[in-house]
């Protein structure tokens, strides 16, 4: 184990100039984020744009989006382990590494949103009180941490076996893999239920919320994965077959079709019944009482999602990397707006007593969020720096020992 850690640390320290530039850039961003967060700790949440009217904002929006990214790893797991689809099986561990970094970001975003992070221990059962079964936030903490464990444990086991040059014992690990599939669905469903269960907020209190969460998660997460794999393929010796990427793109097309269909269903219900439940949607899409900060954003998201859907639907655009990548960027941005601010803010507008009080993130919130994203990117970079050489068979116990012997000999 010690040998492995030393070897891994050496691999993290060494890299190309581009690698150093990237890591230093991330560290700089992280520092800025930490400084902004300290500012928030000192003055209270007043440095954010949030108010008693709109009491959740940018942090919770990013959290919601990232839960989707994390859940999307399952879209690789199913073909890889259940259907034994070779091209994806080779790359699934990288998808799981993405899930790990997404989950860490989720937990950091929730913590950043907490007014009293000094009291998080109140959530630890026994020491504090975790209000189960009644609080959905309590459940979310359970399922997110459980999913984090699975996504560290499964690839960790497989990778360590690969490092040892031994075959993984599938009888041992398969139950965990199977468990991770419903678990991925559960993290998204539970997160949707956090909002869904609140009768006070008609915008969220619609049963379509959880299915839509899943559909949109299966768009944005895999799109991120397609981009990530191309980067990995370009900058390392790791081989990713085009076939695998096109297969993922196909799945995105289906997920986006469902997402757009569910959006249509939501539109119909609200527009046709034309009750006061329409107000938050009016605020989001056309503005309410002359206020509509989100209007340009949500239409951008809509245009992006529809365009991306067409790109992923048509084989000749899906199978050309230029258009495929444009589609991925459009979809990630589109879902980030829709599942982030586009979902959270209209839940609070109008306020329960009818007031329209708007929100935009403060610069502190934006800087803290950039810091958290940078931590996520750094974690992912470092994980890949260890995982990929193992997957390539460059970093194994025997090679590690040989190297140590060689350097000792020098």
């Amino acid at each position, binding site marked *: 184990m010690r040998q492995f850690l030393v070897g891994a640390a050496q691999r993290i320290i060494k890299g190309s100039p581009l690698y150093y530039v990237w890591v230093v850039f991330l560290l700089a961003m992280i520092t800025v984020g930490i400084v902004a967060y300290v500012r928030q700790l000192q003055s209270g949440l*007043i440095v954010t744009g949030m108010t008693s009217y709109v009491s959740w904002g940018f942090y919770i929006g990013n959290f919601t989006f990232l839960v989707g990214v994390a859940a999307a790893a399952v879209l690789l797991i199913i073909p890889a382990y259940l259907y034994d689809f070779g091209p994806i099986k080779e790359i699934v561990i990288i998808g799981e590494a993405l899930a790990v970094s997404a989950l860490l970001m989720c937990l950091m975003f929730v913590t950043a949103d907490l*007014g*009293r992070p*000094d009291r998080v221990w109140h*959530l630890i059962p026994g020491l504090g009180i*975790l209000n189960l079964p009644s609080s959905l936030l309590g459940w979310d903490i359970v399922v997110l941490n459980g999913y984090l464990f699975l996504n560290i444990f499964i690839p960790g086991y497989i990778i360590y076996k690969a490092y040892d040059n031994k075959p993984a014992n599938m009888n041992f690990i398969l139950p965990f893999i199977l468990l991770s599939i419903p678990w991925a669905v559960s993290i998204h469903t539970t997160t949707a239920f956090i909002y869904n269960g609140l009768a006070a907020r008609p915008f969220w209190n619609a049963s379509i919320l959880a299915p839509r969460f899943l559909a949109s998660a299966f768009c944005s997460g895999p799109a991120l994965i397609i981009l990530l794999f191309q980067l990995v393929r370009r900058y390392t010796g790791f081989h990713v077959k085009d076939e695998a990427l096109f297969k993922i793109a196909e799945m995105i097309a289906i997920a986006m079709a469902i997402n757009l269909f569910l959006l249509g269903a939501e539109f119909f219900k609200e527009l046709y019944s034309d009750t006061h439940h329409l107000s938050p949607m009016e605020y989001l899409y056309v503005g309410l009482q002359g206020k509509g900060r989100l209007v340009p954003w949500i239409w951008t998201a809509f245009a992006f999602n529809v365009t991306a859907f067409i790109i992923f639907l048509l084989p000749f655009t899906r199978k050309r990397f230029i258009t495929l990548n444009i589609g991925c960027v459009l979809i990630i941005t589109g879902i980030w707006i829709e599942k982030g601010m586009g979902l959270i803010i209209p839940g609070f507008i109008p306020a329960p007593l009818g007031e329209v009080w708007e929100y935009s993130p403060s610069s502190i919130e934006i800087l803290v969020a950039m810091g958290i994203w940078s931590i996520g990117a750094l974690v992912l970079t470092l994980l890949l720096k260890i995982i990929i050489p193992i997957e390539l068979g460059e970093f194994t116990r025997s090679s590690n020992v040989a190297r140590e012997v060689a350097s000792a000999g020098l």
Partner: protein
Amino acid sequence: MSEEKTKEPGQTSELKVSLDPASSQEAAEGKELINRRGFMQGTAGVLAAMALGSCSWQEFFQNNFRRMTKGEIEQTVERLRSEYKQKYGKDFVVDAEGPIDGTFFGYALDIQRCIGCRKCVYACVEENNQSRDPQIQYIRVLRFKDGDMDLEHSTIYYDPEEVPEKGYYYLPVQCQQCENPPCTKVCPVQATWTEPDGIVVVDYNWCIGCRYCMAACPYMGRWFNFADPVIPADKVNVNTHYLGNRPRMRNVVEKCTFCIQRVRKGRYPACVEVCPVGARKFGNLLDPNSEISRIIQTKRVFRLKSELNTQPKFYYFFSI
């Protein structure tokens, strides 16, 4: 609104007649100022932030109120009293009294009498030690045009020479003290609950500041201290209850408690006492002869958003 203003006690502006929106928003709009200045100070203040302000070890490890022993409650109350003495230079009473046997509180508001003067709003602020800067007010008086009861058409921003205004009526809203409260259900740490006498309370020292309860409340009954609450020392009310109007800290949720510090001693809530037209009624629902029980039995009453099945113990009624 600058940062200094939120931090220095005694800088509170005179209470205006008109209801300002929770001024945390105003402060948030001044955020650009704060940010630019903030970075250098921010780095310097890392250590201070680690200690999280004035949080002592005893405060840090303090248990949930409902899990404390009698002795622990006494110790905590003593600690709070000395903290408050230091901060405000006054001797505080911090009650931790439990409910009176055989009481279950209810409230009724006569919308035909209410004239929209907002005296209740400010009496509440003074009684319950709400922050003056940023401003927090538990009661919001909605003004409706006659013939309309659509919340989205109502406003809290009205400022005439004299009230009541012709052609309008008023509907004050505060925590509705629900029997089926959506807010306590969602709290991930049980920092808020319903007391045996029906009052929904918050343990300010247990709240983690996630604001899930605020999202769950259909009545805007909960408020968040986005910054250190500011109460001028000469305005602070020293007769407090642990679960009620004791001074709060930043980044926790607070709410109306029917003036728990008063009603558990047989007094009326401050808003009932101050109402110049006697529109506000309060009493024990378990006593069939109390004024509140009589009103519910004999008047035409309704509860806000009854379709949500929150079952408020706060009734509105028509006196004629």
